């Protein structure tokens, strides 16, 4: 299901301290990949990968400016309570689905 992939992407994007740091940094203003990579002491390739994951989750947008790639905070904000409640709701539905499947699967075994 598409919606499940979306939640997984959001959590995956934020399940890393570097990526959370990138979001925090972009909250203060736009930055290039090079500017983002420097304080974390990681390679440009490494930072590009982090930014791509954040971009896929809609948390960051990027734009090519000359030879550099400028990054900005994306349309989805984590602080946005609606984004969070929506994600939570999808997670809860997924949880209940899987719980029902487990009950079906173990029927008779644990009665």
């Amino acid at each position, binding site marked *: 299901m598409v919606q499940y992939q979306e939640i997984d992407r959001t*959590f995956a994007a*934020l399940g890393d301290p570097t990526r959370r740091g990138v979001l925090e940094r972009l909250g203060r203003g736009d930055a290039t990949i090079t500017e983002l990579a420097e304080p974390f002491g990681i390679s440009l390739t490494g930072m590009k990968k982090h930014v791509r994951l954040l971009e896929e989750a809609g948390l960051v947008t990027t734009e090519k400016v000359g030879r550099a790639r400028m990054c900005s905070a994306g349309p989805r904000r984590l602080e946005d309570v609606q984004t969070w409640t929506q994600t939570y709701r999808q997670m809860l539905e*997924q949880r209940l689905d899987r719980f029902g499947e487990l009950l079906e699967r173990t029927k008779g075994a644990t009665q």
Partner: protein
Amino acid sequence: MTNDQATRATVTTPSDREIRTERVFDAPRDRVWAVWTDPELIPEWYGSRDGETVVDKMDVRVGGDWRFVMREPDGSEAAFRGTYREITAPELIEQTFEWEGMPGHVCVERTEFEAIGDRTKVTTLTLFHTTEERDGMLGSGMEVGMNETYARLDELLARR
């Protein structure tokens, strides 16, 4: 499955910071409770299908903590934690829920288990604390602090 109700969750939003889900499971209440509260079975249902859920802590008693870590296939992790606030087997569990990726946004999940013959209705009401509310608490706390400071300053000035 004969009844459609058993396979679909009903989701309603009583207010903009509440989510209520209701679902009927085709299993007796004692069994639903036993599966729901078994740490060994959490990896089987709690997290996403593709990922892996590791139970770090699950102390199912009032005041007990829980913490689950979900690992996705790409190696990233998301951790969730909380505390059990109320437990009445096999009827009710109230616990806090917090995603470590967004600390401070604590939800309260209240799950009720209702026996309907050999089936069980599971209702979860989740209450979200809004940023405004949290800021409000912070504001009033600061106000009290400031008033105390002023009162002490008044006392000090009166003594001189």
